[in-house]
């Protein structure tokens, strides 16, 4: 099927009233939770997972994806107005966005970030349409050995690049893989780690795990934290219009940001936050006068916003073409597909053309809706920013409980949420990030399956992983990442020790 027929089919799917409604609901909710610091995309999508059991797969995915890219728009509003990032990926927008607010140019900043987000998203969707079929075509030749090493590479990349020290990230991946083994083993029919609970024979529910690790842990961290100071600005459309200089200065940064974002979004383990930081760093490097940055340079908000929105779209490339999610949110999307009995992979586009093209077109529609939601309605979002968190979090908790209960009509899963919440909170305090754990949990069963099949076919000879060129390449990149990660953590450990020593010496010298 060509791109043109695909897009036609996509339009037909995405323009159905039901799909449109869920698309609108998704981007609306995405903007809302993007605006509010203290409720993240992951928590919201895990909260919505139970809902997806009750609706058709296409509207379900359209809605979840809408939350994901909608939050990228909303996140910058709090960054610009309060110097408080609504989402991690818009943290870098604080650097130049908040100074613009102090100079009375908040309206312009909001306008430029919205337009930059829109252009970044649209070009990101284009990259998604071009690259997904190409990558899927390559992946058609993959056997279980390639699949296993590719997942290994993805997990190692996610744990060594994205989060803190590599050893801690890897430990979380392995813990996630272990949690994924709970329940009935498909090959032998043996129920593993059920501790006598019949409910655990079906495994730990993804919904309960995600809500515990992301929803509950986030609520506990956000209670009693200071939030929104008074915002005085009033926004009229006229105050938001940028000058001609503003537009000229942000045109190229938006394009560069889009390029950076499209690239990093599609890589496993990098994601939207790294994409926006990279775009900011690039702008600072190519600028004629780098000293303007941090004082309200318009390039400093245009490039990162284009970048994280492009990345949010291309993040779907590995998820849909290979069935390998690059970040925790994509792991949840994959989980939602698996709930509906759809396993994405190289055959996804040809077997589920309606879903692939429907999703792509709905992304386009969603982004247009987002511009409409963000520009004229900015005042609404600003007033929502003033809602105190103490009124929100008890409601969030109840929604989590009811949502988890509704999946299997069983209070048992609510206890699992409590257990996972305690684990998630304690581990987060120890400095362990939960995203690699979720990736491991989702990929675990498939990894075990491919490992088993590879070694069964090779009659137990592990050399098969090195003899096949593609698999060997994946392993080599994995090894490089591991060595690089070890080196980096030794160096940062040494410099931390040196810094602490210097501090102690300075103190004793006084």
């Amino acid at each position, binding site marked *: 099927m060509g791109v043109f027929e695909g897009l036609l089919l996509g339009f037909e799917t995405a323009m159905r009233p039901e799909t449109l409604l869920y698309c609108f609901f998704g981007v609306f909710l995405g903007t809302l939770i993007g605006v509010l610091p203290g409720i993240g995309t992951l928590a919201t999508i895990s909260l919505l997972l139970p809902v997806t059991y*009750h609706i058709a797969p296409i509207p379900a995915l359209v809605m979840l994806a809408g939350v994901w890219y909608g939050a990228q728009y909303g996140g910058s509003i709090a960054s610009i107005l309060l110097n408080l990032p609504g989402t991690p990926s818009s943290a870098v927008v604080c650097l130049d966005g908040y100074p613009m607010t102090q100079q009375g140019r908040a309206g312009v900043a909001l306008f430029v970030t919205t337009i930059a987000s829109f252009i970044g998203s649209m070009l990101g969707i284009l990259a998604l349409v071009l690259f997904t079929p190409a990558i899927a075509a390559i992946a058609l030749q993959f056997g279980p050995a390639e699949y296993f090493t590719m997942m290994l590479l993805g997990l190692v990349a996610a744990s060594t690049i994205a989060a803190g*020290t590599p*050893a*801690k990230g*890897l*430990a979380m991946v*392995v*813990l996630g893989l*272990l949690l994924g*083994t709970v329940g009935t*083993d498909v*090959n*032998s029919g*043996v129920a593993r*780690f059920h501790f006598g609970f019949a409910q655990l024979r079906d495994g730990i529910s993804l919904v309960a795990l995600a809500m515990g690790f992301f929803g*509950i842990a986030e*609520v*506990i*961290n956000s*209670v*009693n934290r200071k939030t929104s100071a008074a915002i005085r600005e009033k926004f009229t459309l006229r105050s938001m219009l940028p000058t001609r200089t503003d537009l000229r200065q942000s045109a190229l940064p938006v394009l560069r940001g889009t390029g950076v974002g499209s690239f990093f979004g599609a890589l496993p383990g990098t994601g939207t936050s790294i994409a926006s930081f990279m775009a900011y760093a690039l702008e600072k490097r190519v600028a004629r006068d780098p000293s303007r940055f941090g004082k309200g340079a318009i390039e400093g908000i245009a490039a990162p916003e284009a970048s994280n929105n492009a990345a949010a779209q291309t993040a779907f490339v590995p998820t849909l073409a290979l069935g390998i999610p690059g970040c925790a949110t994509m792991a949840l999307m994959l989980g939602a597909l698996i709930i509906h009995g759809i396993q994405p992979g190289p055959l996804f586009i040809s077997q589920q053309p309606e879903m692939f093209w429907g999703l792509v077109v709905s992304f386009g529609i969603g982004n247009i809706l987002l511009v409409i939601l963000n520009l004229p309605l900015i005042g609404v979002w600003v007033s929502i920013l003033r809602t105190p968190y*103490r*009124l929100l*979090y*008890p*409601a969030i*908790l*109840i*929604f*989590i*409980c*009811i949502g988890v*209960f*509704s999946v299997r*009509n069983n*209070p048992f899963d*609510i*206890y699992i*949420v*409590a257990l996972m*919440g*305690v684990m998630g909170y304690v*581990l987060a*305090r*120890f*400095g*362990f990030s939960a995203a690699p754990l979720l990736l491991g949990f989702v990929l675990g069963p498939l990894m*075990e399956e491919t*490992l088993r099949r590879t*070694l*069964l076919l*090779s009659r*137990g000879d*592990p050399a098969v992983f090195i003899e096949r060129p593609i698999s060997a390449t994946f392993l080599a990149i994995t090894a490089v990442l591991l060595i690089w990660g070890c080196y980096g953590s030794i160096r940062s*450990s040494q410099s*931390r*020790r040196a810094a*602490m*020593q210097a501090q*102690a010496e300075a103190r004793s010298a006084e």
Partner: protein
Amino acid sequence: MKQKDIGDILGGALMIGFGIFAMIYAQRYSFGSVSQMGPGFFPVVLGGVLAVLGALIILPALARPGPDLEFNWKTLFFVIGAIIVFAFTLRPLGLIVATMAAVLLAASAERKFSLKGRVLLAAGIAALVFVIFRVGLRMNIPVWPRGF
């Protein structure tokens, strides 16, 4: 500056604990061989890897100062308590009672929140979930105490 990196040491120990537990517990499942893996193979190997990673986290942390750990025990207690109360009371007492009890408990985590405010919030959220989940989504969930 004798403070050690407590977070990494305790976290690493936790990982070693999980790993060893998985290895021992999975002994009851057949291990099989590399070419014919049994249900015990993957968990035992993963447990071993996790324990090794735990050790790798602890070792450098022993010789390195780290930040102090901050735990918000009170919030953790109220939030987790609210979830457990909800799970415990939902079946016998129904959605309305369970929601109000859980909200009252959860809202106690916030320092500046009057009793009257908490009661109003609890009633408001109970009404909201009733409208959304029972009236709107027609979910099959017990609403009132059993016998009513």
